[in-house]
Structure formats: structure tokens, C-alpha cells
């Protein structure tokens, strides 16, 4: 048999700027799905593996399904804390008893999700990316321009040509701005504070969200013992910006006192294991998720309040949808940066992102207030939600089991 000696066709080049977890998952899914037909480069001067400190993520079951298909969940599972249930309370600091308004889960066969620190997720994905032949460059992205059937991006002085540029450079994306994509959003007068806290009593896998007047205070159960005490949790603490800045500079005892007030007595003695780290909070949405030869991914496309723990899940949802659209095109020999591919990605993601931004923004506004009338209203509201099919729908959405979820998020390989 004589084989025609056709040279291998050139691979489609996909350039991802920003090396966060969603970017790494996208890169890995692309190489798994399209193999040598794509050449994937991630550019980030400070990739997530290098940072990490104290930040934990709640992974929805859909995100877990995706990481499982990508082959890294088995590495992560031993260090992941199963979320057995979720308590939501609405109270003032002075209230001794904090009544539950919503209580999700409890059935052992279906966890609500898993909690995991950022660093191990990023490390496992980075290792898998390296093994799959993804190129990682520690270069910042400079100028960019579309040229013919491609986009040219300057990376640390070199010009890099790609069929598609994925802008995953965060909520204040420079690439989004350079592409002229408008951003609608605002900063909250609040800041987020995160830290890892060790405690005396077992959290039992229950995540707690106290809606306090200054903003939600979440206690997220982590796996494994703390250094000095037998259990540990991660906190996501939303606080008025001026107060948060005070706390970031406050002496240890003052921080310990503030934490103890917020934790209440449930988990016994507590001890902070990492310094408080602060970050600005806001909500925002890009007017369009795509431009010529460019797609926005993760926070560059949508910024949500961390109270629902959905930021990373949304980013992974973007990665799953974009990977699916790209792989489907490339398997047909079609240009992954073409307008039809990008339009399809935008259709896949926009509703999800808008819904989540609106929901978390609404919840934050509703709860970050001490007005008696609003408190009465939200108590009534949450009570109604708790008794309605809306709760089931909300949980199904969080688990990614609603219709048209990307294949990876349904646990199917591309």
C-alpha cells in the first residue's frame, strides 16, 4: 500500500493569556480533545500555582465531573472536603442564636460539592498540562492586532500568531479593553477577606453562610487537620471596605476578637493559620464575550460576588463550553477562531453568567443591610424559597444538571 506522503497539516494555534485554573482546564481539555491538531500556549507572568495562599474554592458537582474527565480528580479527591450540607443564617453579630433559613443537602449519596484550596487544583492542572504538551510562558501580553485569518499578540517582546486568543486576564482584563469590549459593572463598597482557620470541633462537612449586616461571612469546611487544632475551615469574609482595611492592619488580638464574634461558639476554640488577605469586590459583565478572533474567559467575561462560591464554577463552565466548541470545529477541520464558533460559545455562556451575576448581586444587596423592613422581607423570602421547587432548581443549576450544560460538565469526554 502506498501512502501519499502528505506532511502533517499545521496545528491550529490557541493562545490563552492568563494562567488561572479555568485557563489550565481549557488548555488541558483542548489537548485531550483535539490532540496534535491544536497547539496550546498559556502566557502568564505570575501563574496561579505561584500564588494560592489561603484561598479555597467550592467546586460544584459539575466542576468535579469535568476535573474527573480531565483525569485530575483522583489526585485531588483525597484532599477535598465533601460538602454534606449548607446552613444559611441571617443575623446580627449580637444575636446569640442564629436561626437557619435554608438548609441544603444532608443526603449522603449526593454531596453539594467539594471544597478545596486553590493551590492543589492549580498544581494538578499545571502538571497535567505539562504532560499533555501545553506550552507555558511567563510573559506578559502586550499589544495585539488581527491580521488575515489570525490574531497577533506581542508576548514579552516576541510576536505570537494564533487562530484564537483567549483573554483570561481577570476582571480588569487589559485585552478586553484593547479589543474595545465594554464592561458594565461596579465596585462594591465592600472588600473580601480570606484566611484559613483551625478549630476545635468538627465542621461535619457543613458550609455556613452568615448574612451579617456588613455582608456575608462564609465558613467553608476544609479537609484535614489544622496545625494546632484538629479541624480547619476557610473563611470568605465580606466587610465594609474601610473596616476591612482597618482589619488588614490590625493587631492579631483584634482580628482574633472579630473572628470569634463571627464564628460564634459552634466550632469551639479557633485559631487563624494564615494572614488575612484582602481583595476588592465587585460585579461586572462584558457587553460581549467575544470579539474578532478573541474570546473572554472567566472573570474577564463576568465578575460575580463570591458569596455563592460560583466564580470558579462559572470559569470552569466557560472552559468546558469553549473547549467543546473549539474541539467540535477542529475535528471538522474548521477554523476554531471563526465567527460561528465564537458566536456559539457566547450563546452557550451568556445566560449562565448573567443569571449568576444578577442573583449574587441581588442577594448581596438584599442582605448587606440592617433595615428591619428588609430583614423581615428576606426572612419571608428565604422561607418561601426553602419550601418551593425553586430550591431544587437552584441546586440542580449548581450541580450543572440543567439542560444544555457543556459535555465536560456532564462528565462526558469531548
Amino acid at each position, binding site marked *: *500500500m502506498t*501512502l*501519499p*506522503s*502528505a*506532511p*502533517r*497539516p*499545521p496545528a*491550529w494555534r490557541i493562545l490563552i493569556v492568563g494562567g488561572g485554573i479555568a485557563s489550565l482546564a481549557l488548555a488541558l481539555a483542548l489537548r485531550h*480533545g*483535539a*490532540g*496534535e*491538531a491544536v497547539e496550546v500556549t498559556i502566557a502568564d507572568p505570575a501563574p496561579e500555582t505561584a500564588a494560592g495562599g489561603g484561598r479555597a474554592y467550592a467546586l460544584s458537582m459539575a466542576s468535579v465531573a469535568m476535573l474527573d474527565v480531565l483525569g485530575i480528580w483522583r489526585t485531588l479527591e483525597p484532599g477535598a472536603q465533601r460538602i454534606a450540607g449548607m446552613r444559611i443564617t441571617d443575623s446580627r453579630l449580637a444575636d446569640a442564636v442564629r436561626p437557619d433559613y435554608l438548609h441544603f443537602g444532608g443526603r449522603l449519596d449526593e454531596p453539594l460539592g467539594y471544597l478545596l484550596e486553590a493551590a492543589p487544583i492549580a498544581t494538578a492542572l499545571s502538571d497535567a498540562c505539562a504532560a499533555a504538551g501545553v506550552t507555558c510562558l511567563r510573559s506578559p501580553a502586550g499589544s495585539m492586532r488581527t491580521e*488575515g*485569518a489570525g490574531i497577533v499578540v506581542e508576548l514579552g517582546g516576541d510576536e505570537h500568531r494564533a487562530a484564537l486568543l483567549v483573554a483570561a486576564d481577570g476582571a480588569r482584563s487589559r485585552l478586553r479593553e484593547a479589543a474595545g469590549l465594554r464592561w458594565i459593572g461596579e465596585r462594591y463598597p465592600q472588600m473580601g477577606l480570606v484566611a484559613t482557620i483551625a478549630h476545635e470541633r468538627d465542621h461535619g462537612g457543613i458550609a455556613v453562610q452568615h448574612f451579617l449586616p456588613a455582608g456575608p461571612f462564609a465558613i467553608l469546611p476544609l479537609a484535614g487537620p489544622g496545625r494546632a487544632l484538629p479541624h480547619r475551615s476557610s473563611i470568605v469574609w465580606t466587610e465594609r471596605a474601610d473596616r476591612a482595611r482597618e482589619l488588614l492592619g490590625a493587631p492579631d488580638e483584634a482580628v482574633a476578637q472579630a473572628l470569634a464574634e463571627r464564628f460564634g461558639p459552634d466550632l469551639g476554640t479557633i485559631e487563624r493559620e494564615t494572614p488575612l488577605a484582602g481583595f476588592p469586590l465587585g460585579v461586572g459583565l462584558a457587553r460581549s464575550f467575544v470579539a474578532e478572533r478573541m474570546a473572554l474567559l472567566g472573570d474577564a467575561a463576568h465578575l460575580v460576588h463570591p458569596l455563592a462560591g460560583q466564580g470558579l464554577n462559572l470559569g470552569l463552565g466557560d472552559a468546558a463550553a469553549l473547549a467543546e466548541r473549539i474541539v*467540535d*470545529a*477542529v*475535528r*471538522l*477541520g*474548521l477554523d476554531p477562531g*471563526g*465567527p*460561528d464558533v465564537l458566536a456559539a460559545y457566547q450563546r452557550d455562556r451568556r445566560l449562565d453568567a448573567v443569571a449568576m451575576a444578577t442573583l449574587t448581586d441581588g442577594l448581596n444587596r438584599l442582605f448587606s443591610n440592617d433595615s428591619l423592613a428588609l430583614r423581615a422581607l428576606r426572612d419571608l423570602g428565604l422561607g418561601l424559597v426553602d419550601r418551593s421547587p425553586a430550591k431544587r432548581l437552584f441546586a440542580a443549576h449548581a450541580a450543572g444538571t440543567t439542560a444544555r450544560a457543556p459535555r465536560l460538565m456532564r462528565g462526558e469526554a469531548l
Partner: protein
Amino acid sequence: MSSSGRGAPRRASTLVSGEVDKFDRLAQDWWDPAGPMRPLHRINPVRLAYIREEVCRHFGREDRAAFPLEGLSVLDVGCGAGLLSEPAARLGGAVTGLDPAPGMIEAARRHAAESGLAVTYRADTVETLAAEGASFDLVIAMEVVEHVADVDLFVGSCAAVLKPGGLLLLATINRTLRAFALAIVGAEYVLRWLPKGTHDWERFVTPEELRRSCEAAGLAGYATRGMVFDPLDRDWRLSRDTAVNYLARAAKPGSAA
């Protein structure tokens, strides 16, 4: 059948004069996904999905292979500016693109060079290649049958350039009232997807006529799939409904490559 002159039968040709110039004018715009060839760009994923599926089954390729056409010589008859030739090359095929319009071939060559793809383009007809004794593993002729004067001669020439065990894939439009309503009145006059005069209903071929042409050419295993526009999804998909657009496959007996 048609008015082709019988005066100087140099070599039998299936070309209808006038069909060539019409497409020549469209060459530059061909590759613009939002340009006048938008309808072809829209059906391209479905045609390519069909090609991929049929090739994987016929040549025993792995479903998710990155280069399912690797090792196959491919002839794209009526290639235009290369909308199928280039994807076929991307999938690993050693592709020859054939179109009677020299302007179109020039546009196709330039585009392939820009894409860094090695596609051989020839401004010629499949009859010429058959006379030269060329042979291929896979011959595709999509949206061509409805533009040729003699379907039997055309399919016979496609079969002649197939290696034993080779596969022929066709796409065309059925000669039904619905096809007239949708492909001509709808696509050309109402929606303006295609330039007026692109199609001539008289020339449309039914799946049964195409089967007879394939079998007369010594091909076996004839089968069809429909291609329909889904108004809810606003996209094309494969279907069992062959009343308007349909795809067909037939193979040359013998052991496949």
C-alpha cells in the same frame, strides 16, 4: 437533454457554459464567513461531519482521531475556493482540489498558501483526470451534481478516478416541490442566501436517479442522508429527511486502502 452542441466532440464534458463565469465573480468573497457564501459556510460543518463519519466507518478510522484522513488521497471535485479542500487537508488528507474556473483556483491557491496548507489545485474537470488515469481513495463532490449537464457521465468520471475500495461522497438537492420552494424561491429570492440564478430546478437530481447513476458506474453500497435547516436552532443538521438537501455515499468494490 441539454443543448450542448454535438458539432465538435473533442472530449465529452459535463460543463454547462455560463455556470463557470457566475462563480468566478464570487471567488474573492468565498472565504468571508459573513460574505455572499455564508450559506456554504453554514452548511459546511454538517457536510464535514458527514465526511468525517463516513470516512471513519469506511476506512476503519478511530472516531475521535485528530487526523482521520491521514494516509488518504482526496479529490475535491468542484472545490470552489477550497471550503472543503482545506478542512480535508487539516484532517490529514493529501488533497487535490478541482474546479473548472481558473479564477476560483487562483483564489483557492492563495488562501491555502496563507493557511500554510499543501493542497494541489487544478483548474480542470474530473473527466480530464479520468482520462489521465488518476486515482484517489476518497472523492467528494458536494453541491456539484445539480450544476452538471450529464449526471451519468459525471458520476461515471468520479467512479473512474476512485481506487478499488475507494469512497465517493456526494451532496446535492432533490427535485421536489419543497426543494423548489426552499432552495430556489426561499434561498435565492426571499432570504437572498444565494444569488438569483444559482440553481436551475430542472437540473436537480432525485436520490433514486443518483443511485442509478452510481450503480451504472459500478459503485456499491449506495446510501443517503438528509440535511435540513432547523428553524428553532437556526442551524443545519443531518436528518433522515432527504426531500430537499441530501448527501450520498457509494464505494468502489475492492479492498480499501
